[in-house]
């Protein structure tokens, strides 16, 4: 059960039970819907972008513990970041959960670990390939909202 306890860590279970920024956002000027048609996860990400900075961000919807906790922690991580920083976090997060992290010569993985901070707890997801989409759905949706792509899907 060790891989399982890696996946369902207390922090993830806590965010699943009490998701942060779980509401609609009245002041939103960007939003997008995300679907995972395979499992029925469905969420909407709202954000208020001012001068390319994410002033406010929230989400609603339903999904599994991994997708909900990932969405909750995504909103915490992205809030206050510039559009560019948010995109960078997305790509780092994506690389981490898909196990595609690349280390450039002379660069320590620690640099990225600092960037991702407590999002590192999702590292265990890479041992569960079918759950990677659960962890990345909110990130894809945030990306779609930032770039006005409308509805996004993991398929």
């Amino acid at each position, binding site marked *: *059960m060790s*891989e*399982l306890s890696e996946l*369902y860590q207390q922090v993830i279970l806590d965010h699943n039970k009490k998701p942060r920024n779980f509401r609609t956002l009245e002041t939103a000027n960007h939003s997008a819907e995300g679907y995972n048609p395979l*499992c*029925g996860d469905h969420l909407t990400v709202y954000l208020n972008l001012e001068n390319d900075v994410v002033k406010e961000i929230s989400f609603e919807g339903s999904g*599994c513990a991994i997708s909900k906790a990932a969405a909750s922690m995504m909103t915490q991580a992205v809030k206050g970041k510039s559009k560019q920083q948010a995109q960078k976090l997305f790509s780092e997060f994506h690389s981490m959960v898909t196990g595609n992290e690349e280390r450039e010569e002379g660069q320590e993985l620690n640099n990225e670990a600092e960037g991702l901070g407590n999002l590192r707890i999702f590292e265990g997801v890479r041992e569960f390939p079918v*759950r990677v989409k*659960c962890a990345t759905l909110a990130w894809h949706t945030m990306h779609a909202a930032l770039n006005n792509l409308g509805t996004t899907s993991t398929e």
Partner: protein
Amino acid sequence: MATIEQSVLARTQSGDWDVERIREDFPVLRQVVNGKPLVYLDNAASSQVPQVVIDRGSIYLEDEHSNIHRGVHYLSQKATTAYEGAREKVKRFINAHEARECILVRGATEGINLVMQGYGRKFIGPGDEIIISAMEHHANIVPWQMLCEEKGATLRVIPMNDAGELLQDEYDELLNERTKFVAVTHVSNALGTINPIKRMIDQAHKYGVPVLIDGAQSAPHMLVDMQDLDCDFYAFSGHKMFAPTGSGVVYGKAALLEKMNPFQGGGDMIKSVTFEKTIYADLPNKFEAGTPAIASQIGLGAAIDYLNSIDRKKAAAHEHELLRYATERLTAIEGVRIIGTARQKTSVLSFVIDDIHPHDIGTILDQEGIAVRAGHHCAQPVMQRFNVPATARASFAFYNTKEEVDVLARTVEKVVEIFS
């Protein structure tokens, strides 16, 4: 004396379902998953294949592989004989009048699409109505929606109650002079409900309306008889009844199949082709364009032989007992709710747990070697009806055991614990 002992022994064994003996027939069940013995409870999605079916496929590939219906040579004749032999087995298995009424297709989905294309596009027009039910698999919804959109016809849906039983009064109300087709499932893949299709077929026939039965979940678990049911079409998949994927059947009454349009055009479905005109082949070839999945369909024939070699009534009784026991065990766990509590059910057990998503349940069960389906089961309207995003579904076959149900129940308890 030995003879008497043997016959007594045979009787005793047949009195009880010898599940351990049956399990030996299925090599896949011997494997270990995540360090635990595999507990395979996803039979409604795809069932496992017995050694005799695997062996039959090997014989074809080693000794008989060739194209059918066209070669004068030895191997082609052998392959054709084996392929047409499978059709004969299908005919007897479902008690069709004639083998040519059994069209071999890729599975139930292709079978339903064949009927939609061949019958629906020819005989259904603007203002006509097609009746389906609230518990259909997407395979028995989407083709009819496509047809309605193309023809300006209307899709009418028989509703169900909270137990997951179709409301027969409402069905009777829906039937009228505009009804031109009824397509309904024999057994719900998401709920396990067994529908009273004999009655439903009779009702439709009062209006002269043909009926297609989706038999994907019934053919593997029940005795089905085309003469007794009197349905016009019946589609099922080989891979849900212990045969390889790519095998399946759509049965149709010969008189209907003959007046239908062909499904796909190509080789093997013609009598003669010129650039001016093509004359189609007779049944069943008219509906079997191109080289079929020969090995898979021969495998389906072998799976039917296998099913005929076991006592199917006892197999069904065993599955029913597993359902009863699993329902009792899971219902006893706090927070677990069964979706689909019809009085007549096959061995499908869909469940949800308060505040725990089925995907999390599925992942945790998988870590213990238990295979269940977690998701919408290609029946999203059923999920909407019960107001759940998805369910976890354990579905049993005659090779499953009560001990496996115990492992399932213990692990579901563990899921509840992790999320408490």
